């Protein structure tokens, strides 16, 4: 076997090694490959410590990003690799990272650092698959107070910090100013209340002679990514304070679904579904908002990148999602990508060193600017907002700092609850199922598992909390 260094694609600088990696067990290179494979299969392969030729420890960092988002983190990784001579971060982009991390962790061979989401961290943390970072943070002087509270909340579970933010996101109402003008609406005054949203949507909707919707004012199901959190806009919650009771179908939650039902009734379900059928892929010029067929759309901070890419001439604005009452503040959904250290990672100190590096204000801003998001840190340099390509970045940050900013519930059963909330939404939106019945069906499907999950936690809570506090 030729001992020349492994070659990496030239496009991603972070993949290039400064020097050849010396792999352990190089003396075995003369053995037949087939025999090695069989031995590896039989014994289970857990590679030893890898080092670069100049002696740097190689750590693996798995991320989920592609395109410009991947490149933004690659710039930070490159900067880290150039900043010191002890650690080399090998940055690999993975699809379905949560599933791959699940299997790699179960197999005892996880990466040293992984990019995760705030909504997946809970179930992995509760099952003991992640390392709590509190001890390391305390040792090195990193404080929870250094971050925007709603974003740090998304990193925490049961009082422990499980990851530190990489890039956060909030969602807001994006609207088409040209269509506002056409409809006789003030393009500088987006809807302030839910009632106004309904009124604006009516004026912005157009139909052809057959009754087919050719332009829609607003659709709660486009893009539908937050349909499971629909109750948030109406002041309700998905679980109670201690996450021991499901509350989506109670009080204001039910009101939210009744509003949804009325909205679908008003426009006609077949007409709405026909409009949805013509919607193209999100990241395309066929996107309903980007193509000008949908006048108002709930979207995240990332939307400006796609507008610039697919329809730079679009005249658009951003506003907080309308409040229920005049003068109120609409709820804002906040989520965050984060960096975690999986349990069983071989290079915890090196992984932590890299995570700390990303958390430095300068590096965080490099990353967030590259991904066209806002910084999760409380401290932001004055030039960050002024040079940011998204003209509304300040608003997205304000939304994250707002007391109405909310993330997904901190519960292990979130993935199942989310799926069932989506089905309840569809039951009302598509099938015209009465909201109370849809919520009743949801409770029947989720509650038994939810109660069992809580009971399971009760059995292991003491042991888990003790373990975590000692890690």
């Amino acid at each position: 076997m030729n001992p020349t260094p492994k070659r990496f694609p030239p496009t991603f600088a972070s993949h290039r090694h400064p020097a050849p990696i010396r792999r352990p067990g190089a003396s075995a290179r003369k053995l037949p490959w087939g025999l090695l494979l069989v031995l590896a299969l039989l014994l289970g392969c857990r590679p030893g410590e890898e080092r670069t030729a100049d002696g740097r420890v190689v750590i693996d960092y798995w991320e989920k990003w592609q395109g410009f988002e991947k490149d933004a983190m690659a710039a930070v990784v490159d900067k880290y690799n150039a900043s010191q001579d002890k650690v080399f971060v090998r940055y690999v982009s993975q699809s379905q990272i949560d599933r791959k991390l699940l299997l790699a962790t179960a197999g005892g061979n996880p990466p040293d650092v992984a990019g995760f989401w705030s909504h997946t961290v809970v179930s992995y943390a509760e099952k003991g698959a992640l390392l709590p970072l509190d001890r390391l943070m305390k040792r090195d002087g990193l404080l929870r107070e250094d971050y925007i509270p709603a974003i740090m909340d998304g990193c925490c579970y049961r009082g422990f910090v499980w990851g530190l933010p990489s890039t956060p996101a909030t969602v807001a109402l994006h609207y088409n100013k040209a269509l506002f003008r056409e409809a006789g609406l003030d393009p500088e005054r987006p809807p302030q209340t839910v009632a106004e949203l309904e009124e604006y949507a009516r004026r912005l909707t157009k139909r052809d002679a057959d009754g087919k919707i050719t332009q829609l004012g607003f659709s709660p199901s486009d893009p539908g990514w937050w349909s499971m959190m629909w109750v948030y806009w109406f002041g309700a919650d998905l679980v109670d304070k201690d996450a021991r009771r499901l509350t989506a179908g109670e009080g204001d939650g039910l009101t939210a679904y009744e509003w949804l039902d009325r909205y679908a009734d008003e426009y006609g379900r077949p007409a709405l579904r026909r409009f949805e059928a013509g919607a193209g892929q999100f990241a395309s010029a066929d996107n309903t908002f980007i193509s000008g067929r949908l006048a108002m759309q709930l979207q995240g901070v990332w939307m400006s990148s796609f507008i610039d890419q697919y329809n730079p001439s679009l005249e658009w604005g951003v506003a907080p999602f309308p409040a229920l009452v005049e003068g109120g503040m609409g709820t804002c959904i906040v989520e965050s990508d984060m960096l975690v250290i999986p349990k069983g990672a071989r290079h915890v100190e090196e992984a932590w060193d890299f995570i700390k590096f990303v958390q430095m204000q300068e590096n965080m801003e490099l990353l967030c600017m590259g991904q066209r998001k806002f910084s999760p840190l409380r401290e932001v340099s004055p030039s960050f907002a002024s040079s940011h390509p998204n003209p509304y970045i300040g608003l997205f940050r304000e939304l994250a700092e707002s007391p109405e900013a909310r993330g997904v519930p901190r519960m292990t059963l979130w993935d199942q609850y989310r799926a069932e909330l989506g089905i309840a939404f569809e039951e009302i939106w598509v099938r015209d199922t009465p909201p109370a019945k849809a919520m009743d069906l949801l409770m029947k499907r989720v509650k038994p598992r939810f109660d069992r999950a809580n009971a399971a936690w009760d059995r292991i809570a003491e042991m888990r909390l003790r373990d975590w506090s000692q890690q």
Partner: protein
Amino acid sequence: MTARERKKLMMGLLFTSPWMVGLLSFTVFPAIYSLYYSFCDYSVLNPPVFIGLANYQELLFDSVFWKSTWNTLYFAAIFLPLSTGAGIVLAVLLNAATRWKGALRAMIFVPSLVPLVALGILWRWILNGEYGILNWGMQLVGLPMVNWMGEPETAKLGLVIGSLWGIGNSVVIYLAGLQEIPPSLYEAARVDGASNLQQFRHVTLPMLSPVIYFNVLMGLIGVMQVFALPYVMTDGAGGPLRSTTFYTMYLFDHAFSYLNMGYACAMAWVLFAIIASLSAVAHRLTQDRVIYGAN
């Protein structure tokens, strides 16, 4: 056993050992373990905890489990007869074709080589409710437009249509079977005054019955595990309203999204029992109707 025979045996075992190691490591061992896990509360990340039959009991009361089972059986009940009928008809036509035989065979077979993910993306567009080419064709002949993948009532039919795209494999097998039928049987039938239809009914179908049986059985096993096409065409959601949530999709959700690997293993063994039962029923129903050459 002589020394020479022993040596031959050892060589044989040595050369088949990669396959045997693979079979044991990646099929037999996981299968045995999955049976054990089906009796456990197992999240993959934590050690399994034995809970007896609890997973199987829970399945009985899981409405989504029943819905996904129904969806799968419904899909199988429509797809299998259609694919079998269309496969036989296409094979007979190809067998009879005198010109462009090779090109026609390639046209039928090549679509089955398209990767399933690409096929899924392609059919999403073909079946698009507003701009799909299928709706365009239907409008040309005066039929109303159908929001194929947007309505719970039509989504499964849309998947059936998309899946029929890949029947080229079975057509090739039918074609091989047709070419094995001795021409003397047709000659004898013609001498007796049989029409083309009668020849097909009394010569082709009986002589092709072992191939039909094989294709139906393989098709049944495959269709009960349908996954990739609906997964791609619905972004993994199985919508609308779970109308395209097939058995293996729900199993996959439990295994890798909900971290209920024990429950997913129980589902896998139930699926095995369903497929084995259906296969046994199919065997029982057809054993007197399949005519082998030796008979």
